[in-house]
């Protein structure tokens, strides 16, 4: 093994005998551009709505639920597609999320949620994944569009103003603490206690804990 590595190292160290320096640098540059461009294009392709709803699991369940909500159908024609909320926009986090998503390929191959019943049974752990991520990153994917400093409280309803100008402004609450189940249906919450035991109470949106649970903390 060491000998093999040594041989390759020798090859790499030796100056090229057949190719010119110009070919190697320019060719390497073009090759790099092609690879990088191709990689990112393919990555962006996996961020499209068409890619997401290419599987019936997404098309028949979550995509159907999304369509009547404000993030899909609204007066101004601005639409949040799947990746806007479910994939971080920043590159490093995006790659991390894409690596995580390889588990979803596993789920697709083995049909983890390939019927409505299976999906319904998995809804709480799946929702929990998203809640945990948004709780941990201070609802970053919401804030990519809904930036707190840009909010005009005078244009908000009294209820919204009361919540946003207090707990959210103080940083005690984050978007997902109240805005749960806004793009998809909420799961059956009877298994929530087991989820709290596994992921901790901080991973659960505050509004799902109820007043009593918060007092008990």
């Amino acid at each position, binding site marked *: 093994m060491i000998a093999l590595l040594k041989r390759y190292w020798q090859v790499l160290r030796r100056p090229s005998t057949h190719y010119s320096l110009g070919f190697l640098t320019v060719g390497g540059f073009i090759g790099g551009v092609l690879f990088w461009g191709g990689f990112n294009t393919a990555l962006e392709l996996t961020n499209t709505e068409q890619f997401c709803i290419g599987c019936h699991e997404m098309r028949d369940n979550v995509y159907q639920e999304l369509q*009547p*909500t*404000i993030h899909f159908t609204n007066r101004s024609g601005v639409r949040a597609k799947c990746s806007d909320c479910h994939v971080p926009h920043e590159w490093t986090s995006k790659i991390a999320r894409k690596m995580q998503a390889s588990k979803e390929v596993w789920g697709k191959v083995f049909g983890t949620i390939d019927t409505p019943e299976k999906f319904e049974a998995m809804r709480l752990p799946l929702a929990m994944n998203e809640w945990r991520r948004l709780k941990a990153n201070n609802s970053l994917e919401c804030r990519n569009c809904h930036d707190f400093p840009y909010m005009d409280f005078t244009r908000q*309803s*009294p*209820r919204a103003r*009361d919540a946003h100008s207090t707990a959210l402004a103080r940083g005690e609450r984050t978007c997902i603490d109240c805005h749960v*189940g*806004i793009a998809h*249906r*909420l*799961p*059956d*919450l009877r298994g929530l206690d087991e989820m709290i035991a596994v992921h901790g109470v901080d991973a659960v949106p505050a*509004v799902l804990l*109820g*007043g*009593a649970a*918060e007092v008990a903390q």
Partner: protein
Amino acid sequence: MRCALAVIFVLVSTAALGGSHFPPGHVDRMRGMTPITDEATPPPFVDPDDSSVRRARNYAMQPPVIPHKIDGYQLDTHVNRCMFCHARTRVEDSKAPMISVTHFMNRDGNFLAELSPRQYFCLQCHVPQVPLAPLVESQFVDVDVLLRRAGSPSATLRE
């Protein structure tokens, strides 16, 4: 005899048909002038009241109306979104009015520990309000007005 039967037949059939015949100028308020064979264009949506200002009830037992939007609120076997704010344990945080104590009662009048299943579907009684002119003028008279007319000293509403 035959003539009499014919007259009765004509009278009965005109009476039956006459009921569905609108007087001239009458318009179905829901459909407008659209003939029954055509599809009416629905009126545009109107934003419901979102002021969060509590409204007076028109009579003591009236379920209070909802003074805010409830667009997309989930209310099904898994989740009751209304209870996220109006539950007994949530009102301190949410500042929303707590559901009435009657909502904890079963049909025998016994108090349960939580929202009674028969009161679970909030929208059966409580509804958002939309600022629209009523199709038919309301003849409703508040009972307080009636009390005042009858000389009750505690009635405060004036006509």
